[in-house]
């Protein structure tokens, strides 16, 4: 991204005194003036609370008296030493993998489809914005009606097929079932921006590959994939981050159940903080969650970019 030249020509003709004044202030000052409100707001409503939560994570408060005392790293030590914490963290990672795989398959599939010409393409292009517009909480409410064994759409379909309507949100299948809802909601965003990249690939490349006898999968591997590698990496980071911190969807569909089988770290933090009133412990765990998310993101980018570079070298 390049910034455009905004240096004024030496003799800018100015019509009003105000124009003359504001032409004289430097680019940097003018820019700072425009950015200042966001900086101020970010400091007050984001950076300060986050710093404050770091402090909270080092304290232990008594839910009855409300008094808190400094305990150092005790909350972190307790969290890292508890089996339940590791169980919820593992569950979170499993959930992230499920959401990422399903979301990517749907997003890439939709994008590849929408690149083709077919009847009703424009309508479909507009339709797929709907799940995205709903956010995850609303998607969860909607899927309550799809999954319900008493009155769900899935129950109605399995009845027609002569199957017993089973409870999709049962212990064994609850994580993939939740991940499906998340993928349903988030994939349209990925479809749109993968499509934007796909449309930049020159048609001739495919024709050439076809002439050379490269099959469909090969054309995807050698023509399409190099183009979409970066947008894909960004989409994966976005959806992975979303999944790692998912809360509302789980609250609505299962509330961590059945039997804790969908208690991800986010939900565990919610229970610990707002139901058990242990703010310090909740804050400590949310910092660990943040560190995990950031570490995974940075690690993933490193790997993705290195693989990308290696492939480029192979091809040249």
């Amino acid at each position: 991204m390049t910034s455009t030249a905004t240096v004024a020509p030496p003799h800018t003709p100015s019509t009003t005194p105000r124009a003359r004044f504001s032409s004289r202030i430097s680019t940097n000052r003018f820019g700072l003036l425009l950015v200042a409100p966001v900086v101020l707001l970010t400091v007050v409503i984001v950076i300060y609370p986050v710093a404050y939560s770091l402090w909270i994570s080092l304290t232990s408060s008594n839910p009855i008296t409300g008094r808190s005392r400094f305990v150092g790293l005790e909350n972190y030590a307790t969290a890292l030493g508890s089996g339940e914490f590791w169980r919820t963290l593992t569950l979170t990672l499993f959930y992230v993998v499920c959401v990422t795989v399903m979301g990517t398959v749907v997003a890439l599939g939709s994008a590849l489809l929408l690149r083709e010409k077919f009847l009703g393409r424009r309508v479909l292009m507009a339709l797929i914005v709907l799940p995205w517009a709903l956010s995850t909480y609303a998607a969860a409410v909607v899927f309550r009606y799809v999954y319900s064994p008493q009155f769900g759409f899935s129950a109605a379909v399995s009845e027609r097929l002569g199957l017993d309507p089973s409870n999709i949100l049962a212990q064994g299948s609850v994580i993939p079932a939740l991940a499906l809802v998340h993928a349903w909601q988030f994939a349209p965003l990925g479809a749109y921006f993968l499509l934007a990249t796909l449309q930049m690939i020159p048609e001739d490349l495919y024709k050439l590959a076809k002439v050379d006898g490269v099959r469909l999968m090969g054309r995807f591997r050698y023509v399409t994939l190099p183009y979409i590698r970066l947008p894909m990496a960004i989409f994966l980071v976005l959806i992975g981050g979303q999944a790692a911190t998912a809360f509302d969807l789980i609250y609505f569909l299962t509330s961590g159940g059945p039997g804790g089988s969908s208690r991800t770290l986010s939900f565990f933090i919610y229970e610990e903080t707002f139901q058990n009133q242990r703010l310090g412990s909740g804050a400590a765990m949310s910092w660990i969650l943040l560190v995990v998310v950031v570490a995974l993101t940075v690690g993933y980018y490193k790997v993705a970019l290195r693989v990308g570079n290696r492939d480029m070298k192979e091809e040249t």
Partner: protein
Amino acid sequence: MSIRRKVVVHVAAVVLAAWTLIPLVWVAIVSITPPNEFASRPLRFWPKVPDLTNYPRLLGREATSPSGKVLEPSGHSSLIVHGLINSAEVAVVVTAISLIVCVPAAYALARLNLRWREAGLLTIIATRALPPIATTIPFFALFSSLGLSGTRTGLVITHLTITVPLLVWIGTSFFASLPAGLERMARVDGCSRFRAVTKVVVPASGPSITAMAVIAFLTSWNEFTFALIFNTGSTAQTFPPALASMFFQVSVPTEVAAATCLGLLPPLLLAAVFQRYIRRVNFVGIQ
């Protein structure tokens, strides 16, 4: 295109449309299912006698059922109506503040050669990585001492923590995609820096700013975690926690379905109307 490919593409299109629409349409169907047909076996895909009475009853009116019986307003109507009004108020204020603050900043970050530009942009975007559940904890402590729990003001503040970084991010990529030298032309014509922005840049980015506004509104309208933790049960309760309370209380599923439809209609309509602008959101623009 070969016939085979054509068939495959059309079948895939039908599958994608079904995948997208079935969950939404199903909730709407449940919401117009009369109580005596609800959950009766075998499950029906369309009610014999569609019954729209849930909607007026949720909005606090009496309604006449298809069999001619006069039905009382729903017991949850004030919960839902207040929720919808509060959501609308909060979302409008959040959208206005977000735009006022973010449009100039995004412009400056995209088009001016500022010192600290990269660092500033990165910091703002990095705040998006914060898990919402993690930011609720300090706000919970701060709001109880400031008396902002259970107020619309408090909720607006928490929503701004999400919308501001988001809009700066997408706004910066929007403004960066405008043709270079746009301002210089205006400056040559005698505009001041400020007027070059208001008279040339802003009008040229109408669709982008509209998309930013729609995204801010949707984000606030749909926000659940903060609203649940800070405003549940208060007079400032927005729609999502209101729906949650109705959901987890004793309630009729068809009525909950109708309430869901009422609350989801605004974002769905907004997204459908402005989808062309939303599609231009480019999350890849900033590298």
